[in-house]
């Protein structure tokens, strides 16, 4: 059986970097030359999906999808999210209004955002932007979403693993609840 985890966030939030930390095969890189230098000054961007895979044995596998940074694909996200065991929302603290970014990604996932175990990783954070962690927590509270918010640097493998660990534990809790 196939299980999937989604990683989403704005252009340059660190999705490709995060997926590369955890997948078996070098992620299927779909990065191309970035023609939207106005949105982000990075040289490459992901055009389709980032994709990573972990073989779990016994015929099971975990697929990790990164949503493309260019928002014109967002109509596909609710379909992609169907049946997912988790969503990681990466928030880029250096952007103009990170909470609005998060808000628009949560909205893009529609109904599924409330039903899938989720975690927020606040990336590229420094002292000036550290106010964002409690602010995001408060924003989520106001939406009735009880998700954890972690300060992360997705260039560190251990910090990416923490985000995954939360999703696994949230699933464990749901399994336990049903038992």
């Amino acid at each position, binding site marked *: *059986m196939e*299980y999937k985890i989604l990683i989403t966030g704005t252009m340059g939030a660190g999705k490709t970097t995060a997926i590369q930390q*955890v*997948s*078996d095969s070098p992620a299927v890189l779909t990065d191309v030359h970035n023609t939207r230098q106005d949105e982000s000054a990075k040289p490459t961007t992901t055009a389709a999906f980032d994709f990573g895979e*972990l*073989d*779990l*044995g*016994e015929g*099971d596998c*975990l697929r990790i999808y990164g949503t493309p940074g260019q928002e014109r694909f967002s109509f596909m996200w609710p379909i992609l999210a169907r*049946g*997912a*065991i988790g969503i990681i929302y990466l928030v880029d603290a250096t952007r103009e*209004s990170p*909470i609005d970014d998060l808000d628009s990604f949560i909205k893009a996932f529609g109904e599924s955002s*409330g*039903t*899938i*175990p*989720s975690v927020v990783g606040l990336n590229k954070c420094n*002292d*000036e*932007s*550290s*106010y964002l*962690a*409690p*602010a995001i*927590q*408060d*924003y989520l*509270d*106001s939406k*009735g*979403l*009880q*998700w*954890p*918010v*972690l*300060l992360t640097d997705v260039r560190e493998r251990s910090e990416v*693993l*923490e985000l*995954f*660990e*939360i999703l*696994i*534990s*949230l*699933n*464990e*809790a*749901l*399994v*336990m*609840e*049903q038992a």
Partner: protein
Amino acid sequence: MYPDTESNQSIGFAGLASHEKNTIECVQRIYPHRLSSVRDIAEPHAASIIFADPQTSEGQAALLRSDVYVIAIQDRRQPMEQGADDVLYRPLRPRAVLDSLNRVEQRPSAALTPKLVSESGELHQILRNVIADDSNRQPIVLSEQGQPWLVVDPARDRIRGHLEHLNEERLLTRDRHVFNRVTPEEASRILESEQEAPLYRTMWKLAYELGGRARLFGNDHTALIKFERWPNFSETRVAGKFLRAVSLIRHNSFTVSDARMKTGLSEPALLVLLNGSWLTGELCLDSETERGASKVPSKPGGVNSSVLARIRSRLSGA
């Protein structure tokens, strides 16, 4: 001067850094339901409430105006700004901004009759109640034989006073401590020159110092505990095992011994997590948790503990 509370008030900025404006704007945007009257952002000349940095000339100009309500934003080292209607300290926290906006209306009556509500209780219970009570962010002053020794200011996430006296022994003795609720201005005056530390970090430090030696949340072994909210991980350095434990104890209520079995944490480690979260108001006894409006995820199809265990081991080994 106090703006008309009926009308739509607007907020202006004078001399603030852009990240500080962002903090205030985001409060105004994400908390409309918690602001007691609607407020927009406006140019300083059209605003009725101004957030001002007294170190800048724009800020100074705002402080001289008598037709606006001025909230000074300053460093703790600077002397308190006398011309301001209210003062907030850096770094700006969204909660503190929200409280200051809601104080705009309360201020006149509070200033005329500074209400000192005196109460008493066990120290850890007092601390927790003050931190966890969202409806009252007023600071408290704890006194001993008439002498103030600690100021707890949840709105500013500060704790001030003879912090070396705030220790395990004092936390656990059954003595009752007397405390007064005071205005923020009063709190700043009392114990002004004493040590100061972030409130949440101090509570976590205490929890670590206590180790496994106590259960602050009550000695009833059959009591069910549950996380009401996720702990603020930005205040604590937590190991992965804590993350897992919180996910489990957020969804289901457990007794402490069940929680130990399910989470695989040692008793001292689990008690650090539980005591710290209890002090900061994130952990509750199940009897007090609200079954509120929060959205609860549903179990994805086909997931079972074997799959989850394999994902975990593949990730950590890969």
